[in-house]
């Protein structure tokens, strides 16, 4: 109870976390008994969801393999978080904005970005390989939680311009401890920015488990203190993920202010290929989560409803293989980097000093090629 009644109807109370995560399918892929809080997505959308997840998973595997071959500097896998990533991408319109982190490559892929361009950053070619304006997808963000404020700002700005654009920002459980996370929720709440904060709680921030990260009952509950809508969802249940994200998009687009959604999921692979998870978690835990695989869950459901069969599976597998081999080919092709680019994009117009420095590199290159 507060002393003052809130001004106007407290809209966020329509989107408040229950004491358990939203779930439609249990871990075996059977419909749960629990009451559905949000409309179930249509069959077509669920079939589309499965297709995106399947292609995303194959992409993730391929990128992981390319890292082992030294083609990528680093790759943070999203395996296990497939449903979160794809539901995130699917709840948006092409005109909406997405703010991904380094781990959200599957979501970017589902956004229609060319896979080779998408991996440009992780391949060490440039800091962002795709055109963010064209895909309305910000560069993959590495400093944690900083992108959340950008999402709030763009959502507010677009809204001020009279457009019904929304923004979706991803972050992890660890990032919710950063100051910027709290500032973003607060700004978005105060300015009623149509933004969805999708927290993928995958259990760990590198080595630190969620229990050492936060003492809150759930990360979704953090919305309450900022007066914004909040919900927690089984992040390995594709039906629940899509249902909640679709509803969240409708909610924020309708002018109710921001929403925070906590997807409870698990990072199956290491933090990145440079990490050694055996130092901080046991194999039994991974095993348990492998039994909650989002792809298997949705596939079982679709097959039981007659929406998916062996023929469809074979066709999809072939499509995924073709896509992976195109990615391999693309990444194996020589894409020489141009050192003069170093100076081209620091300012709109290079300063005199940058021109001098560019000339120095050009002279060095010329001398080098003369030697050879």
């Amino acid at each position, binding site marked *: 109870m507060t002393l003052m009644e809130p001004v106007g109807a407290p809209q966020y109370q329509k989107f408040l976390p229950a004491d358990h995560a939203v779930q439609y399918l249990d871990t075996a892929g059977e419909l749960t008994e629990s009451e559905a809080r949000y409309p179930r997505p249509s069959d077509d959308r669920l079939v589309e969801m499965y297709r995106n997840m399947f292609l995303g998973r194959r992409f993730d595997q391929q990128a992981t393999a390319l890292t082992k071959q030294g083609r990528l500097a680093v790759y943070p896998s999203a395996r296990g978080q497939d449903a979160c990533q794809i539901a995130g991408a699917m709840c948006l319109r092409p005109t909406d904005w997405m703010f991904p982190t380094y781990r959200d490559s599957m979501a970017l892929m589902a956004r229609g970005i060319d896979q080779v361009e998408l991996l440009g950053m992780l391949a060490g070619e440039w*800091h962002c390989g795709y055109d963010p304006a064209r895909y309305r997808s910000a560069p993959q963000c590495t400093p944690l939680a900083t992108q959340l404020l950008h999402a709030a700002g763009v959502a507010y700005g677009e809204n001020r311009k009279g457009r019904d654009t929304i923004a979706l920002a991803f972050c992890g459980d660890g990032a919710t401890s950063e100051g910027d996370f709290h500032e973003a929720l607060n700004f978005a709440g105060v300015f009623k920015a149509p933004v969805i904060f999708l927290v993928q709680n995958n259990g760990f*921030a*590198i080595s*630190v488990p969620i229990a050492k990260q936060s003492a809150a009952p759930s990360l979704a509950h953090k919305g309450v203190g900022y007066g914004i809508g909040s919900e927690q969802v089984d992040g390995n249940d594709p039906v629940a993920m899509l249902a909640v994200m679709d509803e969240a998009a409708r909610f924020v687009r309708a002018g109710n202010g921001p929403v925070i959604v906590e997807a409870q999921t698990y990072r199956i692979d290491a933090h990145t290929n440079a*990490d050694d998870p055996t*130092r901080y978690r046991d194999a039994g835990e991974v095993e348990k989560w492998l039994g909650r695989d989002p792809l298997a869950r949705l596939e079982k459901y679709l097959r039981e409803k007659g929406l998916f069969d062996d023929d469809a599976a074979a066709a999809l597998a072939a499509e995924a293989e073709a896509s992976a081999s195109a990615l391999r080919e693309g990444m194996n092709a020589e894409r020489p980097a141009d050192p003069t680019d170093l100076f081209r994009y620091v300012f709109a117009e290079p300063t005199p000093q940058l021109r001098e420095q560019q000339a120095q590199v050009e002279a060095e290159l010329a001398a080098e090629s003369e030697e050879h």
Partner: protein
Amino acid sequence: MPTITMAQALNTALRDALTADENVVVFGEDVGALGGVFRVTDGLTSDFGEDRCFDTPLAESGIVGFAVGMAMAGFRPVVEMQFDAFAYPAFEQIVSHVAKIRNRTKGALSVPIVIRVPFAGGIGGVEHHCDSSEAYYAQTPGLKVVAPSTVSDAYTLLREAIDDPDPVIFLEPKRLYFSRADVELGAGPPIGKAAVRRQGRDATIVAYGPSASVALETAEAAAAEGRDLEVIDLRSIVPFDDETVMASVRKTGRCIVVQEAQGFAGVGAEVAARVQERCFHYLHAPVLRVSGFDIPYPPPKLERFHLPSVDRVLDSVERLQWNDTADTRWAVPV
């Protein structure tokens, strides 16, 4: 031969400090079970307990601000910032509080905190993992700023930093973490002292951190061409060892500063200005700088163009006005 890496030397320094003083505490992101992403805190939690080395929530401002409070309660916190660019959320705490508390309170309070920052590039890291941020810290009065370049210094400087009554920004060159040496840990000059790494007659190269080895390699290459270069490793940027640097430049009459950070308004500019002010009449040539370009740290595939190379330093050596004639003497090098 029993060799030890820089990361192991730092680990030993932390162990010895934890053993020597029960007020020493180590905390930060992933410093516990994982032992830090560079394994500098490896085994500290299991050997000294969670009270002495612990993981914090993921919040740099929180880590440094918490350290300020713990220092006020009598602890000596040694905190880890995971990478250079991820210390920026803590910048407010560092420049507004850590650096100023002694001054603001006329000495009534002090916060002897060590902030360990893996810094600089050359490791093929993706963006935000390779910044050289020393100038930001060196520009902030109240902070000591040190950067080891050898395994032995890594140990000595860290022990000194932890014992220091003032806050120290401890910059660890990432690309040297796994460099090895066969050394006895413990001996070495204190914070504030530069080291003459190579004696020479003809010119002085001043460097620090990851650039010190570039300077040494350059000196070896130059020796083959008949130039005898002296190499000074600053070790400590604040306080700055004017004495060692100036004595060397007065002897050689020529000076080049090498740094990996962008050149404009950097530490090299400060060194050049000090040399010019103090050694003007000894100089045969303007003080030159070789640095990274004035650009955001480039992606891995382009970083070799950015980092000061031995060739680039050698080119600079050639521009030190060796054929001293009246009309070229003060020409600005292009």
